């Protein structure tokens, strides 16, 4: 059985990080240059880590599957990044940010990690501004803030609707500086296929060079995964289409426990699916909910055009159900409410699977110019995709898979259960419990990359200074490479009829229907069988064209789909186990009489941590109890 220990430092919550920083071991500058760090993933978390670790003097070998780090999925984040600066004097503080994240996560996150994330958030904004990130400013020249996603203070920093892009480019440019200095070596167009563990310690990775097809070995004193989330499990999601779980899954199979895999956030405001060929869903930032009003017709199946439906025949269902928060209820609540209306037959659009997001009143009150200033680029994006002009007709939106709160289990040092293997950013489970608040991920990714990992990694590497450079000739490298090659050969040899994408779509549909916005025992059990059957079919009827010895996008996809099957089964097992509703995880069996989620704190106040026991074997469950000493447990109510 794999052991885990969260290693939360002693002391009061507000002091833990300071105490920890005082007590971790340090590596002297001369020794840092002898230590190699493998860093897989160069999105916001990875790029921030690469620049900090390079500056410290470590040798970083960084990997990504795109042609350059600047394209990582982090570019897609629109709305903003949180920090507890309290520039608005509206009562914000580190504690309040911490509290909001804990409460938003429905009391399923670890207090100490979340408090630290809130604590470093201010320094992160300082760092990003210094790196040249052009955040929005007021006429005074000071930074502007807005309120975002279900909180009542304005603490979100933003750069129009392109905050993620601007933050990533800031971190990326810092990273490029370290590449120039020779401290970071960038390996682009590489797919990590396996983790190499030697004597219980993570020592390297096996990658496929996506241009040549070559299988490569890379060694280091430790390995960091910053490989992002796996919302693409649903096939259609708001994520970049290349996003995958493979790197995390490879680590999992080698002994890194996986936490809360079924906690996936469904974002309420995405452009609905338009056709069957569609490859992804495009998010409309939830900042739109600050001014847009969500509604459906009061009459079932009302076929009139939106603008022909008079005011008193519209059901502003969020305002009706949640008068205190109205259109600004958290994502999970907004998503389920949309599903509820559509399932009941009130949905709009051709498929009946969408609701209106209407700016008519906002435009009337504030003027078109003001709305354009705030959302111009989002309106344009919407127009480009749908052909509808949101200044004139309401947008149509529907929920979509968006963010994985679940991920590799990590301790306070961000180390997984494999010694020397770290996970940062969306790839870990650490901060968002059962539901992530808007603008919280960029905060976590940059905080962990810039400021937390560089401290905690030293504590481990201090004991590695005597370990000579790791050789890729070690039998464990040999073995891992052989397995990877065999797996590729196996995929190439099936020679069936269906493409990897066909299987991915079919898998995604099962997961969306039964392990998406709402889950129940019968559905989950059925889904498990369906996934197993589909997986069997995959291994009999997959078709991968061309050869493995060249650029082969079909093979890349096939490899990722194999791992999606693995995580799908684990998600279902996790969702079956958690018989409560909490955050994004809504078990239909556990709801209040008026249809709200019912958390069962007495039984499920733990992190569900899963151990891999082998292909075709169910995972074993471990529990990390969650103790709340600094917040009062409350029912999440937005009424």
């Amino acid at each position: 059985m794999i052991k885990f220990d969260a290693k939360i430092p002693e002391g009061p919550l507000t002091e833990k990080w300071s105490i920890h920083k005082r007590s971790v071991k340090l590596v002297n500058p001369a020794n840092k240059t002898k230590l190699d760090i493998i860093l897989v993933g160069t999105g916001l978390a990875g790029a921030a880590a690469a620049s900090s670790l390079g500056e410290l003097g470590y040798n970083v070998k960084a990997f990504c599957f795109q042609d350059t780090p600047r394209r990582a999925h982090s570019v897609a984040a629109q709305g903003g990044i949180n920090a507890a600066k309290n520039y608005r004097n509206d009562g914000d503080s580190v504690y309040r940010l911490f509290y909001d994240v804990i409460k938003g996560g429905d009391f399923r996150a670890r207090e100490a990690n979340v408090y630290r994330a809130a604590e470093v958030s201010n320094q992160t904004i300082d760092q990003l501004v210094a790196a040249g990130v052009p955040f929005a400013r007021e006429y005074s020249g000071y930074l502007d803030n807005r309120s975002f996603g279900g909180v009542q203070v304005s603490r979100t920093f933003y750069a129009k609707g392109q905050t993620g892009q601007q933050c990533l480019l800031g971190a990326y440019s810092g990273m490029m500086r370290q590449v120039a200095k020779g401290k970071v070596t960038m390996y682009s167009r590489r797919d990590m296929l396996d983790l190499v563990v030697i004597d219980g310690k993570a020592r390297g990775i096996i990658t496929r060079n996506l241009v040549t097809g070559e299988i490569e070995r890379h060694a280091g004193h430790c390995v960091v995964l910053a490989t992002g989330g796996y919302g693409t499990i649903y096939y259609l999601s708001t994520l970049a289409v290349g996003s995958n779980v493979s790197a995390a899954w490879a680590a999992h199979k080698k002994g890194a426990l996986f936490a809360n895999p079924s906690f996936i956030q469904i974002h309420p405001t995405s452009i609905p699916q338009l056709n069957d060929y569609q490859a992804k869903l495009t998010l409309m930032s939830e900042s739109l909910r600050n001014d847009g009003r969500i509604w459906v017709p009061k009459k079932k199946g009302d076929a009139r055009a939106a603008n022909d439906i008079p005011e008193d025949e519209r059901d502003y269902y969020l305002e009706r159900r949640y008068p205190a928060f109205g259109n600004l209820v958290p994502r999970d609540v907004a998503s389920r409410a949309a599903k509820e209306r559509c399932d009941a037959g009130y949905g709009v659009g051709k498929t009946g699977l969408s609701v209106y997001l209407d700016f008519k009143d906002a435009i009337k009150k504030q003027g078109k110019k003001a709305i354009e200033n705030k959302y111009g680029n989002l309106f344009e994006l919407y127009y480009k995709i749908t052909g509808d002009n949101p200044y004139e007709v309401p947008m149509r939106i529907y929920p979509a898979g968006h963010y994985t709160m679940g991920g590799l289990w990590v301790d306070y040092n961000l180390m997984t259960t494999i010694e020397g293997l770290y996970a940062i950013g969306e790839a870990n489970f650490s901060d968002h419990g059962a539901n992530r608040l808007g603008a919280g991920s960029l905060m976590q990714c940059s905080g962990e990359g810039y400021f937390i990992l560089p401290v905690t990694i030293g504590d481990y590497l201090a004991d590695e200074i005597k370990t000579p450079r790791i050789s890729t000739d070690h039998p464990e490298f040999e073995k891992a490479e052989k397995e990877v090659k065999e797996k590729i050969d196996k995929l190439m040899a099936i020679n069936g009829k269906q493409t990897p994408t066909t299987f991915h779509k079919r898998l995604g549909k099962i997961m969306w229907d039964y392990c998406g916005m709402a889950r129940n025992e019968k559905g989950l059990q059925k889904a498990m069988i369906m996934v197993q059957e589909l997986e069997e079919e995959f291994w009999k009827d997959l078709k991968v064209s061309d050869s493995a010895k060249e650029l082969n996008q079909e093979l890349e996809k096939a490899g990722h789909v194999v791992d999606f099957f693995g995580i799908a089964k684990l998600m279902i097992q996790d969702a079956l186990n958690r018989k409560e509703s909490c955050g994004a995880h809504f078990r239909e069996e556990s709801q209040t009489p008026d249809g709200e989620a019912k958390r069962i704190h007495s039984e499920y106040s733990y992190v569900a941590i899963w151990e891999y026991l082998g292909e075709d074997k169910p995972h074993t469950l471990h529990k990390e109890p969650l103790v709340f000493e600094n917040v009062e447990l409350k029912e999440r109510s937005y009424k």
Partner: protein
Amino acid sequence: MNITLEIWRQKDAKSKGKFVIYKLNDVSEEMSFLEMLDFLNNTLISKGESPVAFDHDCREGICGSCGLYINGWAHGPAHLTTTCELRMTKFKDGDKITIEPWRSKAFPVIKDLIVDRSVFDKIMQAGGFISANSGAAPEANSIPIPKDNADAAFDAAVCIGCGACVAACKNSSAMLFVSAKISQFALLPQGKTEAKERARKMVAKMDEVGFGNCTNTGSCETRCPKGLKLTHIAKMNREFITAKIVAEKST
């Protein structure tokens, strides 16, 4: 709709490429351009043929991965639109569509429609950053930045590194890409200190890696999907010229 596609096929960097004609039926208006290519690839695979390789990831115009030369236009006929944002509504039944990779000496073809744009990273490494070590940053609001400057810096910062500017330019100049970064940082007090040095180094690298000279034809600006402006080039020229003078004085 039924369309005819003329697509550049090239097995790898070393092989010679050629155009291949494909007839594609039942294309829906609702598809995006890349979904149309997905659809083509599906039919190719089911016939046992090799699918067309092309770069893409976000599919919403923000990552800069995609980039095809469509009917002689970088990113196709629509304005302020990346290839992935292009919709099939822009085309009609019976159309013939020619699809090529970016053509530039600095962007060698890797396979089919995929090119190697890693020289952009090299230019960034030469100076496309502000040298601010983690931890050394002052409090974010300690340096107010006039809103106009901040907004202008943002406008320059939205470049997605797609390379359309280079592909559209008869000289294969990367001036728009480079100048945008130089302008962004030069407009911010944080980036001012290194502005001249940065301009000098980035431009030198740009010349070194094989991009052509800018002769102000302006085609970059018309094809840039993010609306970057030639005024950035003007700004860069200023930074660069003063940088040169300073450098000459000191030698």
